[in-house]
């Protein structure tokens, strides 16, 4: 079975085969044993969380296997709505089975439950936990998502940490022995280190480089490093900015395995760093502007075939904008990506204020932003009394007041007046 994934083939069958996270495993064992012995533990559900590939799912599977539970597994791809959850696991959760094995229920990939599409999903799980007569395990990467707060309070929280590269290396060593591969220490150390605590990705990488070989050396694995995102993107950027023909610039992306939208952001960020002459910068930015127009057309028409023009313009268009060969360029991470993550909420806040003004002042939100908010800022920064009156009149909340006052102390003053009246 050469095509079998090693992550499946070498999946742990018992708890002792799961590497790392000794403390978490012990906690869970104790919790499950209580159920097994007929004592319902204080927390009926266990919430396993941590980065991908640290063994959360396999731990639950091995635990069920060791203690003789019948594991009912669901993940994001199959449970969605309250109704579906009830149908899927309800019978197992609420009935004692007189015959056969006791049940354990696993909700995997909780991060994938969304608020809108999976209406009632999370609350259905909570209801289930309250009434359940069997152990329930939940798994998510990020348990601190506000949506999970009520869930967290009713669960035994069990953290899974990144597995040490030493542990991972020992596992890789065992797999190589079973596969009959003589592997150099350095080669395995390299893979283990690169995995950054993610056991699954380490096994995947090992299979990619080692399957079918008798020997594995450091040179065989070094090319994995090329897949490192940042290095790869720097190489592509270098090729684009230094290319002197269309075909060179285009092949820079073809050879590479990088996301084209991300590459666009990198090129856009670094054009003025690679080129110095304003004419070159203007021509390169013009090419990006045209590429962006094709992106707009793709959005409107959903004709993804237009993507090739985006690629041509953003690579060849940018490459041929120059007259001088650029020297060494210190590439920078796209600021826009950072701004996007931060700035959105302020923008939304401003829109909310504009909508309040629109209702009160018979103007459009655009006019509100352009012609009224600037004056409100002046008032909110200078006159708490007047600001408080206007805030009350417009029905602005504290967030909006903070935004307009742009100063915590001033905002506090205004808010206390609003509340006092």
């Amino acid at each position, binding site marked *: 079975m050469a095509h079998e994934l090693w992550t499946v083939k070498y999946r742990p069958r018992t708890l002792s085969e799961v590497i790392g996270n000794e403390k978490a495993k012990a906690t869970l064992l104790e919790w499950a044993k209580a159920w097994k012995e007929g004592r319902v533990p204080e927390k009926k559900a266990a919430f396993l969380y941590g980065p991908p590939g640290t063994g959360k799912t396999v731990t639950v599977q091995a635990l069920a296997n060791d203690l003789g539970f019948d594991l009912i597994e669901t993940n994001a791809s199959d449970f969605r709505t309250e109704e579906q959850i009830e149908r899927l696991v309800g019978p197992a959760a609420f009935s004692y089975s007189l015959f056969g094995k006791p049940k354990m229920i696993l909700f995997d990939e909780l991060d994938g439950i969304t608020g809108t599409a999976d209406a009632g999903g999370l609350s259905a799980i909570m209801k289930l936990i309250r009434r359940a007569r069997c152990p329930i395990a939940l798994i998510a990467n990020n348990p601190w998502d506000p949506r999970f707060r009520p869930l967290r309070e009713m669960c035994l929280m069990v953290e899974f940490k990144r597995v040490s590269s030493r542990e991972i290396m020992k596992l890789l060593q065992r797999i190589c022995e079973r596969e009959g591969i003589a592997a150099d220490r350095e080669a395995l150390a390299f893979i283990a280190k690169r995995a950054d605590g993610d056991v699954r990705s380490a096994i995947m990488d090992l299979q990619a480089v080692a399957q079918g070989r008798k020997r594995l050396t450091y040179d065989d694995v070094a090319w994995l490093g090329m897949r490192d995102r940042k290095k790869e993107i720097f190489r592509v950027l270098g090729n684009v900015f230094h290319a002197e023909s269309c075909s060179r610039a285009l092949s820079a992306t073809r050879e590479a395995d990088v996301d084209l939208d991300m590459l666009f952001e990198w090129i*856009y960020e670094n054009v*003025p*760093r690679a080129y110095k002459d*304003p*004419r070159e*910068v*203007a021509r*390169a*930015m*013009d090419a*990006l*502007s045209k590429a*962006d*127009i094709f*992106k*707009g*057309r*793709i*959005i409107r028409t959903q004709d993804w075939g237009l993507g090739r023009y985006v690629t041509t313009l953003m690579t060849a268009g940018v490459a041929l904008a120059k007259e001088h060969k650029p020297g060494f360029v210190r590439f920078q991470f796209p*600021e*826009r990506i950072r*701004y*996007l993550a*931060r*700035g959105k909420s*302020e*923008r939304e*806040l*401003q*829109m909310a204020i504009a909508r309040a003004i*629109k209702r*009160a*002042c*018979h*103007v*459009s*939100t*655009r*006019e509100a*932003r*352009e*012609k*009224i908010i*600037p*004056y409100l*800022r*002046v*008032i909110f*920064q*200078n*006159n708490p*009394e*007047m*600001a*408080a*009156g*206007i805030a*009350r*009149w417009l029905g602005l909340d504290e967030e909006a007041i903070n935004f307009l006052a742009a100063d915590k102390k001033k905002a506090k003053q205004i808010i206390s007046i609003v509340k006092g009246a």
Partner: protein
Amino acid sequence: MSLMMWTEKYRPRTLDEMVDQEEIVARLKGFVKTKNVPHCLFAGPPGTGKTTAALCLAHDLYGENYHDYIMELNASDERGINVIRETVKTFARSMAIGEVPFKLLILDEADNMTADAQQALRRIMERYTETCRFILIANYSARIIEPIQSRCAPFRFTYLKPEHIAARLKFIAENEGVELLESGVKAILEVSEGDLRKAINTLQAAASLGKPIDEEVVYSVVGRANPAQVREMIELAMSGKFIEARQLLRELIWRYGVAGTDLIRQIHAQIFKMDIPDRWRIRIAEAIGEFDFRLVMGANEEVQLSALLARLAEFGQLMGRGA
């Protein structure tokens, strides 16, 4: 001192309270008398009383509860054809209850509607004339399609006379117990360019400083309300500092939430206020227009606006401004 926006507090409630646009007010009073209103097109510059006139007309026509008989829409927020089809149609076709046999739909910034939406609107205006009359408000009547114009009684609002604005400002200042000096009045007139709303907003913001309002106070308020950032951004670009200019652009978009279309309009306005030779202004304006167009076509405002900044940097170099 009053605790709401003065533009609203001092907005005339009835046609009698409107002191400007005498001819228009007289015609509107005629409509009230006969209890009949044709479809109307109010065209004119901002802050000259178009929306106020529409609201006053509604008040005089229907009385204190006029809100029950009108619908106010702003086309720049709801410019899509769907709004016209759904919202407007639903409102227009239901019967009015009361003395006046029709309702009033006030459509502000109608010149921002797409041509398709205007065509749809035209049908609805025709079909539901019995139950609903339309008041279209626009800065530029030329942007309203011909068939709609021909169905509307035209009203041209003109810039308010400086002495009228000055009288209004003094009245408000006195009422609010604010000391407004003559140099302050002059400064407000200067910066508000015949736009009464802008004048009153400037007055209120100036009053918030708690000092007698003179020229200096007015200009400091205007300076704060209109951050020099757009101008600074253009100047950075033109002196060859593209990276810094783009950084400012990002601040404006992502921190202050300024919309791309607003920014490009401000850039255009600035070009004519800055010290740039006229023949260059024309070329630059043309480039701005091109990117205004691309802004609509593209996917990402920031990319388009930075491409414009790069063009400005190139212009700066050609003009010998560069560092």
